[in-house]
């Protein structure tokens, strides 16, 4: 989730050969020439299927749609609604916002004045210290949620703290983490951020257990996989929360889940999150705004309304690959939250597609050509 969208980093290790077939999802007709007897000049010159696909992609494509923030329809456009809206703005910015900042400040004071003593004084009593730190983190997250007037409805059984399980959820903004964390102190795996967020990550989140990754390092993947495995095995560790999409999506679609969370040999508990855009769009478009601006936007809106569903834990079926398992869980989450699935890797936001896809098209074209050349 770094803001430098011009980085074209090649993550060829991400786009594995064992991904489900992209061709099954793409809408247009195939560019495979239908075998229709002998090869003629017009078959060779007729590149219209390939051109049509390219033009179709230029005009509209399912990947860009995932990251489009859809602004709400303006409703304040007439003579008596406009003053009402103006009053609303005044209330939100000059009454609600200062109150919320106050609540948040009080929350931080309470949190820090409890956390720092607990962290240092209870050094020897690890179990008690961890328990208190967990509760304190849940507390500060509740304060955060209150500071945007978060109206969160939780459905389903609350997560139990057991070993050998991970939680996966769809990702819309970093506030997903805060909303889930206020209910259960999860350990989290995150991209290391700069600025004040990074500071929070390295101090407070350390206490609930955190794993860092660096999206731009391809070797990082193996290291992270190992850290994940170690964490899940440890009985003392907090349950791990993973966002397998790897990037923020606009809460209308889900992109492909990375298989890392699904090959740890443990139970996967899906969590679906759906935001109601009635007051504000919670999608953090990291290309358009920084996290601070995003938080400020939330804090000057009426409320953040969302539903969280804790769904039935899933285990990998015998004979199922990690990727198929990931797709199955993605299906469960997408259906529950009413999201459409697209076959794209979220990391394509930061890098180009692997040449493998183009090569598939080239291969089928070549085979068809050569076969038809032989026909009489």
């Amino acid at each position, binding site marked *: 989730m770094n803001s430098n969208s011009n980085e074209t980093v090649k993550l060829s290790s991400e786009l594995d050969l064992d991904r489900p077939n992209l061709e099954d999802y793409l809408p247009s007709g195939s560019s495979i020439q239908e075998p229709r007897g002998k*090869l003629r*000049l*017009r078959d060779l010159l007729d590149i219209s299927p390939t*051109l*049509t696909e390219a033009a179709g992609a230029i005009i509209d*494509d399912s*990947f*860009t749609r995932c990251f489009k923030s859809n602004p709400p329809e303006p409703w304040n456009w007439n003579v008596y609604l406009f003053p009402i809206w103006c009053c609303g703005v005044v209330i939100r910015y000059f009454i609600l916002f200062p109150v919320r900042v106050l609540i948040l400040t009080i929350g931080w004071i309470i949190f820090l004045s409890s956390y720092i003593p607990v962290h240092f004084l209870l050094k020897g009593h690890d179990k008690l210290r961890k328990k208190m730190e967990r509760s304190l983190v849940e507390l500060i997250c509740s304060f955060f949620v209150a500071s945007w007037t978060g109206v969160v409805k939780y459905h389903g059984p609350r997560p139990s703290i057991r070993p050998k399980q991970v939680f996966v959820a769809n990702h819309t903004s970093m506030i997903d983490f805060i909303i889930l964390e206020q209910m259960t102190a999860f350990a989290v795996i995150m991209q290391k951020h700069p600025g004040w967020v990074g500071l929070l990550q390295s101090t407070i989140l350390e206490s609930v257990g955190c794993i860092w990754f660096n999206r731009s390092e391809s070797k990082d993947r193996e290291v992270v996989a190992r850290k994940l495995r170690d964490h899940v095995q440890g009985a003392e560790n907090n349950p791990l929360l993973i966002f397998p999409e790897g990037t923020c999506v606009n809460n209308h679609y889900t992109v492909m889940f990375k298989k890392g969370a699904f090959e740890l040999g443990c139970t996967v508990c899906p969590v679906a999150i759906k935001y109601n855009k009635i007051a504000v769009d919670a999608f953090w478009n990291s290309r358009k705004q920084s996290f601070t601006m995003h938080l400020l936007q939330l804090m000057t809106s009426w409320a953040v309304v969302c539903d969280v569903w804790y769904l039935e834990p899933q285990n990998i079926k015998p004979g199922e690959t990690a990727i198929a398992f990931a797709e199955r869980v993605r299906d469960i989450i997408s259906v529950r939250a009413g999201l459409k699935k697209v076959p794209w890797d979220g990391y394509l936001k930061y890098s180009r597609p692997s040449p493998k896809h*183009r090569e598939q098209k080239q291969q089928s074209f070549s085979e068809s050509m050569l076969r038809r050349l032989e026909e009489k």
Partner: protein
Amino acid sequence: MGSASSVLTQYDIEEVQEHCSNLFSQQEIVSLYQRFCQLDRNAKGFISADEFLSVPEFAMNPLSQRLLKMVDGLNFKDFVAFLSAFSGKATTQQKIEFIFKVYDSDNNGKVSFNDILEVLRDLSGSFMSDEQREKVLRQVLQEAGYSKESYLMLDDFIKVLSRSGLKMEVEVPVD
């Protein structure tokens, strides 16, 4: 149209419509403009090659580089004119003209053996050798009454492609 403001006036729409020979309806032009602004991230008034390539479906197309040369840096008016060949209202001749332009990369009005070979190379990649490509091309050219030294003009393209029932249409999503 000047620099890309995010509001299109009726006059702008009519100007663009005229420029694309009325092949798109006014609603389609508005949709295309929304798309143009979406791809043109910093409102420069044109879409750079990099921004086109950020659409994965386009980047994986074998002819993407060729098309990129034609569409890179176009302003909105020319962008719509470029896409007009894919409108449902475009005639077969207009579509064939577009295909001819894709082949005629040096814009000299004629397509040589090598021009066709280049496109074939894009489409087949490493799955056909140069010898195989030349063999295929020479064979079909000969059958159609041309030779390796022939230059194909637009009329030749029209003659060869008119009968094959060209299907080259993209629907512009209109909200």
